[in-house]
């Protein structure tokens, strides 16, 4: 099964990459892009019997490794 994990910086954490992209977009004339936040995206190919099992495994892996809870939060989607 496939799980997707989206890791984003918590809102309180400064995001230098998002900020730089936003500035660059404004320079390029995209004033309509109000805010940009950059995160990480993982596609996991999992051995799991059910969507729930896949979600649980992905969450465990995200807690353990993929996200740093001090600065990041994550969201999981299972296909």
């Amino acid at each position, binding site marked *: 099964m496939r799980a997707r994990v989206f890791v984003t910086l918590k809102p*309180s954490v*400064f995001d*230098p*990459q998002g900020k730089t992209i936003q500035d660059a977009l404004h320079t390029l004339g995209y004033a309509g892009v109000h805010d940009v936040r950059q995160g990480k995206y993982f596609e996991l190919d999992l051995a799991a019997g059910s969507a729930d099992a896949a979600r649980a495994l992905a969450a465990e892996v995200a807690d353990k*490794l993929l996200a*740093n809870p*001090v600065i990041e939060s994550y969201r999981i989607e299972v296909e």
Partner: protein
Amino acid sequence: MKFAIIVFPGSNRDEDARHVATHVLGQSAELVYHKDADLHGADAVILPGGFSYGDYLRTGAIARFSPVMGAVRAFAERGGPVVGICNGFQILIEAGLLPGALLRNRDLKFVCEFVHLRVEQTDTPFTRLAQPGQVLRMPVAHGEGNFFAEPDVLRSLEANRQVIFRYTDAAGRATDAANPNGSVHAIAGICNAARNVVGLMPHPEDACEAALGSTDGRVLFESIVATVAAGAAARPRPAVVTAATPRV
């Protein structure tokens, strides 16, 4: 005394640290491979700079699971002096031995240059021979050294005098221009609540010989030697309870 210098896959300033420990300080040092679960009787531990696991995912994120980290943690809990330099600092943070996080540099670029640091606290095994307020010149070389902590963590770091080094100009003023990576409060290095675990982004190990442009890093390594000689490292320290709850 004997230093243990931990070699993770991707460490690259391990030899620099060993060179300082042995050739500059005349002490003994052993490179301890990360798969080793033992510190071989070392008196102090250095987690060196580099790109452990390529710094893929997040700096230090994978290295913290190395077998040797169990021994490092136990050594730290016994009060042994542990210092993480650059990638070593990042690993200590990911391992929960130090609070906060290290984000990408403000301008998103790797930065290698000489900077100035002000020594904020001298009651750590890494700074005991330095003068309070002393300004040291040494290089930084990193892409992710932008120290961050949530406001409450930051407050407790400051309140408990856990900020050990700040980026300043040569005169000791913490200006924006003197901050190479955007670190909050110009923080360049911190210690844990028990004060025996120190992490910093700059590289004192590359600033210990006149031929390399600065000898200011020596005082930090000499402090460790003095700490060990004083037997302080062996004595358990009272744990200080703080608001900073390190990640485990």
